[in-house]
């Protein structure tokens, strides 16, 4: 546990739509929902299906494998958690189960040169301290 490093912006609770997603990150599980009525993959998480309005949804755990849909490399951010880490990659990753998550691609030397659209990636976690939520990020597979 590192308390010296400033924390990233944290999800704020109570927020009942996304709280189950974030609770699961404490066990390093990346969860997403499917609709019991129409089968749609629902993401970002919410209590209803955004395709048909059904309130009957099921939580599933992703294998955490997918590909970079697109990304941008942020050269400057004023947030304390990001301003001193150098250029970092914001990305949309398409998980193999059919949902798209906003995330970071980490574990590369130079994000501009070493990341490409379509690149295969796998899930890893940025822990936020003992007992806290963890933030899902991706690294080259």
């Amino acid at each position: 546990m590192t308390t010296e490093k400033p924390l990233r912006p944290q999800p704020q609770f109570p927020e009942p739509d996304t709280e189950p997603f974030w609770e699961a990150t404490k066990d390093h599980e990346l969860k997403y929902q499917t609709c019991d009525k129409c089968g749609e993959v629902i993401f970002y998480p919410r209590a209803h299906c955004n395709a048909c309005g059904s309130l009957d949804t099921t939580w599933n755990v992703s294998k955490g494998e997918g590909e970079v849909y697109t990304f941008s490399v942020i050269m400057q951010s004023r947030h304390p958690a990001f301003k001193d880490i150098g250029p970092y990659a914001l990305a949309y990753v398409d998980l193999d189960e059919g949902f798209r998550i906003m995330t970071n691609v980490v574990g590369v030397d130079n994000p501009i040169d070493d990341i490409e659209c379509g690149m295969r990636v796998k899930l890893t976690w940025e822990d936020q301290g003992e007992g806290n939520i963890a933030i899902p990020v991706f690294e080259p597979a």
Partner: protein
Amino acid sequence: MAQTRDAAIVGIHEYPSRVVGSGVSALQIKAASAAKALEDAGLSWSDVDAVYDTGSHQNIGGLGISEYLGIKPKIIDSTSVGGTSYEFHANHAAAMIAAGKCNVALLTYGSTAHSDRRAIGTGGYASSGPNNPHNNMEAPWGMTLISNYGMVKARHMHQYGTTNEQFAAISIATRKHAMRNPEAVKAMTELEFVGIRELTVEDVVDSRMVAWPLRLLECCMISDGGGAVVIASKEVARNTAKKPVWIIGTGEATKYRENGGDITVSAGGQSGPRAFADAGVSPSEIDSLMVYDSFSITVMCLIEDLGFCAKGEGGDYVTQGHLVFDDPAGPALNTDGGGLSSNHPGERGIFLLLEATRQLRGESTSQIADAKLGLAVGNGGQLGSRHATGVTILAAD
């Protein structure tokens, strides 16, 4: 659908200062602009019977601004969809006027974004935003506004092979127009731009990287400013001071980040065809094209999605003799200098209507010869996630 001419823009004003300092508020910019726009129309304060306001400034919306101005409207509309709110407002005003619900609609905008030193682009989310699913699913990864658009540009380049040199054509054309507009030159001077001159491809592609693949000269300025638009019924428009500019086509749409969706296609893919069908005209007939240039990629996507060229061919389109006011290929892009080089206090949509109107009145500093049809297309929210695209097609009298 047959084209109708029930409502027209009859009065306009663009607040001249882009750096107002601490002694002027957003509400004061709105009121001063309203008075000038009504004067431009030859109408008076008491003629206004409909008020449109986003409510995004000083936390005062349609009700509060009506009281502040001293107007008792029959119609209040506080639609707030980011920078394109003003196309939505103009479209709604035209519909309400056509329905006989009001006669003189007032749209105002005022912002002190520069003086407030709001870090619109690079600030990212605060960790103490309201509890909602959007913040909870975006803030933890350090997204900034520019990186949201950067993701769209990266995908456009990947999917269609569009180059940085092609994107630069957008910045070059708008700067050329800005250099002909004394208010834009003054804005760039007050905002301490480095190198206030026409741009080369090298200037753009060598400028500082902000959020790869977006560079500084592909990003709009952050100014203070505002303006007002007066829209009136055809009966009122017969007696206004200047020639009316008719609202002949309107379209609105939204788009969200979707599983498996194509991020390079904006909501303009829906609202553009709606507006063209409403007006009964086609993209090739448009003389002046006012596109929300928050970033180069916004213009690239909207030009394609509205059908000025095929999807993915915008890179060729912007480099093959379009955009500049005196290029016969037309249409001309952002002849006031745009958000890149003239005015962007956070919600630029109203300036698209103002410059489109100037063109159709023959009042632009980069006047298109014999301009008959203009189009304003705004983009509000964030192009790479949830956003709205409003389209307003205008015709000369």
